[in-house]
């Protein structure tokens, strides 16, 4: 199909090269004396097994989610940047709370649920801002956005990696509270509440982290935007943990679990609606 080139251009006729052999010859000619090794290999590349793409669909979507999550976890295993910071902060906070409340609080059960959720809340902020912040700092965010990947798949991959970091940290905090406060939080409903609460926290936190990642003041902006949104989750988490720690009937904990579950559903519904807008003109 012919078309008119820009009028200012003196157009030259280009010859179709019908065979691979001619292409190689022409390639060498165009290279103008570039007869060294790599160039010869380059011509062979065109004869190599063709690049083929998998079909899209839900399988491709899940593969993208997994690829992003695995990449983040693999990088984190080498740097220990996020988990190391979160874990150190969490354990130190537990110790500081232990020292502070040891003097004035008659029963540790009164404060342990609040301490658990406060530690998770603040440690989470430390880790979340690195989620996209490191991509922005290293200039790799554009690489993700240039790929033919749905934005929600990138978001979910980040959520999966962050969830793993949070669970590792919580696996340290719960025993630390047992040692420091002599309060056993290893109970099925508490752990279920913690898991559901963490999913909701990571869901909203990752979205807000994406929103603030390109802002220079993201370290301060993230908690300012995030903490008010987390209030329902925080209150429900503390309420649920208190029910179990106080030894009340499990049935009293179910409404709190229901609120946390509803919060999670809302978070991910909103995230899927907003995630494309977050990276508009990134």
């Amino acid at each position, binding site marked *: *199909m*012919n*078309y008119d*080139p*820009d009028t*200012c*251009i*003196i157009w*030259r*006729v*280009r*010859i*179709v*090269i019908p065979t691979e052999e001619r*292409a190689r010859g*022409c*390639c060498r000619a*165009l*290279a*103008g004396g*570039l007869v*060294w090794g*790599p*160039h010869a*290999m*380059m011509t*062979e*590349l*065109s004869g*190599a*097994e*063709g*690049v*083929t*793409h*998998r*079909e*899209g669909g839900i399988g*491709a979507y899940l593969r993208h989610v997994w*690829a*992003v999550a695995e*990449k983040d976890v*693999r*990088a984190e295993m*080498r740097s220990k940047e996020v988990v190391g910071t979160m874990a150190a902060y969490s354990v130190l906070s537990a110790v500081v709370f232990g020292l502070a409340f040891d003097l004035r609080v008659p029963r540790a059960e009164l404060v342990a649920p609040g301490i658990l959720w406060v530690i998770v809340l603040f440690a989470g902020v430390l880790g979340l801002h690195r989620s996209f912040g490191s991509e922005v700092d*290293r*200039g*790799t965010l*554009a*690489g*993700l*956005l*240039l*790929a*033919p*990947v749905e*934005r929600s798949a990138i978001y979910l991959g980040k959520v999966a990696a962050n969830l793993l970091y949070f669970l590792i940290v919580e696996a340290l905090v719960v025993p630390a509270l047992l040692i420091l406060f002599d309060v056993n939080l290893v109970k099925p409903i508490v752990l279920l509440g913690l898991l559901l609460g963490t999913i909701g926290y990571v869901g909203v936190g990752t979205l807000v982290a994406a929103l603030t990642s390109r802002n220079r003041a993201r370290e301060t902006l993230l908690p300012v935007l995030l903490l008010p949104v987390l209030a329902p989750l925080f209150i429900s988490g503390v309420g649920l943990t208190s029910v179990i720690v106080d030894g009340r009937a499990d049935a009293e904990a179910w409404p709190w679990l229901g609120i946390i579950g509803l919060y999670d559903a809302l978070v991910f519904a909103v995230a899927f609606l907003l995630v494309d807008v977050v990276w*508009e*003109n*990134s």
Partner: protein
Amino acid sequence: MTTRTAPLIRCEHVSKRFGHKRVLRDISFTVAAGEVLSLLGANGSGKTTLLRIVSALDRPDEGEVWLGPVPLSSATDGIRRYIGVVAHAPLLYDRLTGLENLDFYARLYDLVKPQRRIEDLLRILELWRWRNESVRTYSRGMSQRLAIARALLHDPPVVILDEPDTGLDRDSIELLTALVAHLRLRGRAVLTTTHSLALAQRWSDRIYELRSGHLHHLACPDRNTY
């Protein structure tokens, strides 16, 4: 027999402003299959902004960019499969090895059995020996070569190179030059920016300069001097 096909890149009346500053004003050009178009321009002249718009990373305030028959404004995420970009930043994860970086991007681009392709590119770009080294141990030139491998991994028909010669030594620039020639031969549309007129003359079918937001035609280098 001519190969004047419909353009793979068609930029029509594109304008972009940041605040009160108009960076691009009514930019129009086309790049056909098997054609290399170079953009020159001073720092801040809008070259990178234009390339970001063409690579679907940014949207113009006015005008439209077409990739083949598809307008980018209404394209789905899948259109990105047809674009390979070497950006200012290498877009690589420094905690991962060269091989792991390419494998990660191969998965994002849904490549089937990409190992052969990855090995070919790493060998061509002389990085095979360092494939299992962390990218943070790479020199600037090695990172840039790996970035080129990343951009070409999925064999895109549209290749966008934003100052690809940055940080490359003389041998690597020769390699890049041969690579651009190869892309032309394989019918890829290549849009590149550089500060080097000499390089642009070696690579390009057409050279434009971005000045005051406008595109000015500079030259049509004679390919026989390539």
